[in-house]
């Protein structure tokens, strides 16, 4: 028996097509915000108010000539971008967007860890892609990507455990459901964890002030230097999907996921709407931080991780444990 609902959910809504369209939309929002803060206007010509600009970029890259350097490791060079993109999309499938996740199940206990692991694997594939291109800038760029995301994964995992601890479960659906049933998003219950999580996500996504791997003035194109055509299109799209993934994680863990008041009609429309609105709010904050700061040096990024963020994450976890055990049962 072919489950047409499942196929529809995977391919169209809230699956592949919806995620890709949301990614392109978030890319446009980011570019507009950055332009406005810099006193400019941003993309205006492609479609009304430039909204089709990311789509034009993507299609143009697909139609360019595909050049493969002689010395590059062929298989990894060809498939790593597409594989990284696929894994990120698959990780997004586990997040409840219209009330439940793609597979219409309540998730399973531990799927929070699974999707964080998927994100790590995708980052690792990006590193391999840059490494396989056999270009000195690609090598240095991908080495920096590796050091940065491996370092920041640890505090990221620790801080992500905070909402899990309060909700008492490692399942994402359970975490967002706890926030809905108690009418208190975790941003209120654990604001310190929210701030630290935002910083850790900013570093994971390699955005300013942590965007050392993409610094043009030192590394030319970074790990993307040798890629052209379709492979470059998917590398860019992977990066944008990662941004949506990071923001969606913040929404699910701290802002209550897709839950919100349902006014009339079909609930899944309202859940999707609240999800998208909260996502845009997170994207706005993240892009604001990006535009307002300069870029840290790689050694400052790493020492900031090991000396500041990791101890802060541990302290935050201990504080949460203490609060959950003794304070919250009385208050919440």
């Amino acid at each position, binding site marked *: 028996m072919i489950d047409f609902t499942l196929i529809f959910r995977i391919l169209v809504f809230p699956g592949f097509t919806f995620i890709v369209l949301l990614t392109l939309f978030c890319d446009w929002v980011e570019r507009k915000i950055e332009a406005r803060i810099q006193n400019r206007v941003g993309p205006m010509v492609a479609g009304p108010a430039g909204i089709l600009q990311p789509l034009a970029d993507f299609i143009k890259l697909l139609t360019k000539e595909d050049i493969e350097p002689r010395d590059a490791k062929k298989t990894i060079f060809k498939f790593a971008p597409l594989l990284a993109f696929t894994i990120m999309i698959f990780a997004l499938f586990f997040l409840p967007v219209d009330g439940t996740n793609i597979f219409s199940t309540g998730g399973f206990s531990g799927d929070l860890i699974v999707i964080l692991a998927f994100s790590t694997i995708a980052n690792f594939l990006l590193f391999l892609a840059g490494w396989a291109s056999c270009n000195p800038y690609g090598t*240095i760029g991908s080495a920096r990507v590796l050091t940065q995301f491996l370092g920041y994964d640890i505090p990221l995992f620790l801080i992500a455990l905070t909402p899990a601890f309060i909700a008492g479960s490692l399942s994402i659906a359970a975490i967002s459901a706890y926030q809905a049933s108690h009418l208190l998003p975790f941003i209120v219950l654990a604001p310190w964890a929210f701030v630290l999580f935002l910083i850790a996500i900013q570093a994971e996504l390699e955005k300013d002030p942590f965007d050392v791997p993409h610094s043009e003035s030192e590394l030319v194109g970074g790990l993307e230097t040798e890629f052209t055509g379709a492979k470059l299109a998917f590398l860019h799209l992977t990066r944008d999907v990662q941004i949506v993934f990071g923001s969606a994680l913040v929404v699910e863990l701290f802002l209550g996921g897709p839950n919100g008041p349902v006014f009339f009609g079909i609930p899944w429309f309202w859940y999707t709407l609240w999800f998208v609105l909260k996502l845009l709010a997170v994207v706005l904050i993240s892009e604001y931080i990006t535009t307002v700061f300069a*870029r*840290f040096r790689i050694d400052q990024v790493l020492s900031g991780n090991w000396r500041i963020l990791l101890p802060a994450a541990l302290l935050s976890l201990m504080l949460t444990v203490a609060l959950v055990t003794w304070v919250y049962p009385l208050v919440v």
Partner: protein
Amino acid sequence: MSNNKIDILSVVASKLGNRVQIQPGYLSTGTIIAQNGLHRNVLKTMIDADEKTGITAITGLDFGENLGVYYHVHTSNAFVTIKAEVPKDNPKIQTIIDLHPGAVFHELEVADLLGVVFEGHPTSGHFVLSENWPDGVYPLRKNVKANEVKLVPTPKSEEITLPENERLVKIIIGPQHPALLEPEKFAVTVDGEIVTKVEPRIGYVHRGIEKATESRTYLQDVYLVERICGICNSIHAAGFVECVEKIAKIEVPPRAKYLRVIALELNRLHSHLLTLGHAGLEIGYETLFQYFWRDREPIMDLIELTSGNRVYSSLMTIGGVRRDIKDTDIPKIKTTLKDLRGKLPFYRQVYENEPSLKLRMKNVGVLKRADALKLSVVGPVARGSGVDVDVRKDEPYEAYAEIPFKEIVYTTGDTWARMNVRMDEVEESINIIEYAIDNLPSGQFRIITPRSVPAGEAVNRVEAPRGELFYYVRSNGTDMPDRVKVRTPTFANIPAFLKTAIGESIADVPANFVSLDPCFSCTDR
């Protein structure tokens, strides 16, 4: 400033008076003619007497049978030229790089372009010319015509010498690189993340301007010399024009001097705002770059208002300026400058309080005062390290002697200090322009001068936004110059960059580099 003014010529006269010929008052403070290696003794005497002695430039000339090698030396209060000559069939002269390491680049250039052999300073390959340039053909010699040079058909491919130790990685920065607006090549050897050696290769923007000036008239040369650099174009024109006026003994009317000051300070304003914004781009601070360049646009409008063109104002000419300022334009100039002055506190606050900027700029690329003196750096790089050199104060030209302004000096010597020097100089430039407009003398703004310039030679120093700019012009009585020598400030400052980059992280190289404010089109000419 040293309180005891040393009379350097009498010091040299007392030690070597019987072996060299001294002409006091000729070519600025004086000229010393020293043959047979005595230039080394003269230089050593000067260095021992005055710690601020340094080489400004080494000019090579072609006299037909002999080649002239002129050393232009600056001390704390004097500017002396040491003249030496060598026969063309045996052009050997002793090097001075052991006495003054800042002379390395100057000697390499004279060796490359004129064929002088500096004993004790081995050279390999070309310094400024391209690799496929034929050996033995020296472009600045009179017998070489530009369109008759036959290039070596297959250029020798540049071998990249790999470092001996396998841990070290050699990274080539340039010629096409997003950090550099201009093509230059730097081979940086790194150990992990720390830089151990920097080898520059300049000459990618060498357009043979010095040779081209010899086949154009003086008036045509003003336009040619202006295009050595698009950013500091007015000051190049001013340096050349003043030098010619010194040879021809032309006295420019006072109104023209004030108008020249206004044009030069507008040039300095736009150049400093450009550098301040570009520095933001290098450290990943795009927002600061956009804001600075947004505030730079009204200055470009002012340059267009006073001269008609956004970048190349072409206001300088021999005998004055080509256009006058209309009285109806003056209110607009004053309003724009007032707006710019009102924006400066915001940028000062960013530099004082912004944590990510301070992390990238403080204690990065530190140049100590002793090194700055030894390498004779100029401009904001020197003034950021506590060395107070500013040609506008030391040897005032145009109307600068009559206009009050402060000389900005910071002592920490890091990138942050150098950028702050430029920011404060922006405010000083606004003060200068406002004073000049309020006190503009009436009268002519130009006098007509004869086409030919009488035979003679002169040196001239002016303060470009990047530092001291030096011109030497030699005339043979016709309407075309015999030799024009330009020493640009970045040429003097690059050895300092090589020194400050060593021992620091490679991630600091772009920020360090841009605080030097390099202009390679100036360097290569």
